[in-house]
């Protein structure tokens, strides 16, 4: 956690291009604003949205498309005025503080590939290899099948999401990756992940990458765990530098070119 707090100021992110008639966020890409926003967020917003925006009474602010598709000014107005008809009140804060909050929330949800992250991706690739990640995860067609494909993970997930997924894999299990053991009526036992299941059928990927389509009527029993097959001790196995490099490597896994930038491109007004 401490490492995360140290790293957060370095996570500087892009955002949607503002509309023609909207003011810009004057603090976009300002590390000090991210850190100031974090403190304000913890004090004023964390009770409902979670200390790191993970959600609670209020919506998750890290993964939602709502945040990604909102302009900074729309977020500013939401914080300033609150959300009518909901529990969220308006914030009686100076404009500068609200912009700090906007800058922090933007940093929470931006895709990792669009942010400037610490660490060295090339070293992270070596960490990825030596840690056995490819035993379960695939990147560009190479690797295992029990975990999610990581070929585009840097464009799909935020830096924080990636880091927490490595450190605490049990806290978020992607749909389709729950560990499962089924016993067939013919005596066989299959172990793997449930790509899907109901009381009536299972779609199971076993540890050898074989896909089974099973009717529940053919099964003697089945157990599905709410846990992750991914080891939970990477935080201990890896040094801080290795962890930082590994997440930097994952942050760069994209299928399309993505530019990490400190400030968004501006389209309005005269060139400057």
């Amino acid at each position, binding site marked *: 956690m401490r490492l995360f707090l140290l790293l957060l100021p370095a996570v500087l992110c892009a955002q949607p291009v503002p509309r023609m008639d909207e003011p810009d966020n004057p603090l976009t890409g300002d590390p000090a604003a991210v850190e100031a926003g974090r403190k304000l967020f913890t004090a004023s917003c964390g009770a409902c949205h979670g200390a790191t925006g993970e959600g609670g009474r209020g919506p998750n602010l890290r993964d939602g498309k709502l945040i990604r598709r909102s302009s900074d000014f729309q977020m500013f107005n939401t914080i300033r005025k609150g959300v009518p008809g909901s529990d969220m009140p308006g914030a009686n804060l100076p404009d500068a503080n609200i912009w700090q909050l906007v800058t922090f929330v933007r940093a929470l949800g931006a895709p990792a590939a669009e942010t400037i992250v610490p660490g060295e991706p090339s070293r992270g690739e070596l960490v990825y290899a030596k840690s056995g990640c490819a035993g379960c995860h*695939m990147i*560009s*067609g190479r*690797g295992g*099948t029990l975990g999610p*494909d990581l*070929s*585009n993970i840097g*464009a*799909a997930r935020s830096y924080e999401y990636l880091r927490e997924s490595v450190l605490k894999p049990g806290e978020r299990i992607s749909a*389709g990756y729950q560990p499962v*053991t089924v016993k*067939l009526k*013919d005596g066989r036992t299959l172990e793997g992940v449930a*790509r*899907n*299941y*109901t*009381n*009536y*059928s299972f*779609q199971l*990927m076993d540890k050898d*990458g*074989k*896909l*089974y*389509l*099973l*009717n*529940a*009527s*053919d*099964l003697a*029993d*089945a*157990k*599905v*765990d*709410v*846990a992750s097959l991914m080891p939970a001790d990477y935080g201990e196995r890896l040094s801080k530098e290795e962890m930082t490099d590994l997440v930097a490597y994952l942050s760069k896994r*994209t*299928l*399309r070119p*993505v530019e990490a930038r400190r400030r968004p491109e501006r389209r309005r007004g005269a060139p400057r």
Partner: protein
Amino acid sequence: MRGFILCALIGLPAAAQVTDRGVTFDDIRQSPNANWLTYAGDYKGTRHSPLKQIHRGNVASLVPKWTYHMETGRRLEVSPIVYDGVMYVTNSNEVQALDAGTGRRIWWYKDEQSEIQRVNRGAAILGDHVFFATGDCHLVALDRKTGAVLWHKKYADTSKGYFATLAPLVVKDRVLVGVGGGDSGMRGFLSAHSASTGEELWKLYTIPARGEAGAETWSEKLIDWGGAATWLSGTYDPELNLVYWTTGNPWPDFFGGDRRGDNLYSCSVIAIDPDTGKRKWHFQFTPHDTHDWDAQGWPVLIDIPWKGQARKVLLHANRNGFFYVLDRVTGEFLRATPFVDKLDWAKGVDDKGRPIEVPGKDPSPAGTKACPCVRGASNWMSPSYDSETGLFYVVTLEQCDVYVSSSKEPEPMHNFAGGAGEQIPTEPGKFYLRALDPKTGNRAWDYPMTGPGTMWAGTVSTAGGVVFFGDDDGHLVALDSANGRHLWHFNMGQPLFASPVTYAAGGKQYVTIASQTDIFTFGLFEPATAVPVLEGLKTLK
């Protein structure tokens, strides 16, 4: 190997492992059987299945087996493919793999970064790769069992007016894709890519470059932006090793004053060597089109007796209202007959297949009534051909439009079509499923539909003597393919823009069609079997 072949014929057994054996070129040549491995089921575009568990004697007991709701579905146009009990369906920028026996999702791939949202008509498969095109013209290969991305290649530049909606076509070791955008100005092309890497192997433009043969059919002004899009998948004859691909309208669609000439190779079918990308022959259905009559109806490849001799022919029901028979070896024109009554823009065709146009039917600033309508006498909705009945089943629209032209200066990529085809409020269109005899061009039977005249659904016929089609009122309908007699229907309650397929899984035959937002699958009625809740599922672990 033998076990797999048996399995492929009857589909997966009930508790089954999906085969580790990837799809081969030979498998595609043998499709359809239990599998449905191309957009049209086979290479030749017949969309006819040898399955006959469901037949004209029992189709009346067809019932819904499962429905899969596509969360992102707004207007599904997909024709699913099915391999060894797994169905692959697409929507804009996404592919989902479903258990074909239950409709449960196995994986879901969505390209969130695509710049363009467009409908998507389907996927292709070879080896362990499932291929599809994103709206912004990236060709993507996914692992068929996991949905993991194997490669992801941009094949056209959206800044030059391109987008994609088509299902790719796999031929031998390569994947063929085309482009849309012909209503806003672009230069159409077809390209082939390595199935293993996505690398471009060849590219064939459908508008000649300045100085090339065919360039003389254009005026200088618009040849660089002439359209002739390749937005629908093609068909393939493995024995001749020729791919047949149709092309779209010349641009601007409704104003031809700035593009005098025949405007090759718009509104045509082109025969191409898939090894080299070289054009072997072409046939242009509508020279110098001004009614937006893309040739994107399916080129269906069959062998029939012709004047006492067996002949390899290509059937094509064109938007312009004529049903064509061509020699697919040489491209020689054999015959064209009207397949709609509302056809007044041409008196017929000459002995080379060129339309004999009626003067005064071009679009005009004040509007000109002409038939068929802008959507055409048929369109990209799939037809079928059943060699047992010898009939070609095609969804047909009887409608005229008022065509308006604009001589405004064309601006490529600015959504400018040079006019429009406008429906006449007092003359709504009416759809028919029409059975044509390719040997004569005559109609064998007609099945009229009710509805608003807005559908885009096609057909599938089977060895069980049934032809299924989506109608203009949101029904999947089954007719006796010999005589057009109604046998069964089901109301899906949504407009239809897709064509049905049929396959087998777990030894049972199914029929599937996409509605606007869902995938519906039907099978023969069976009494339900009680399934006790498994002990391990009674509490959450």
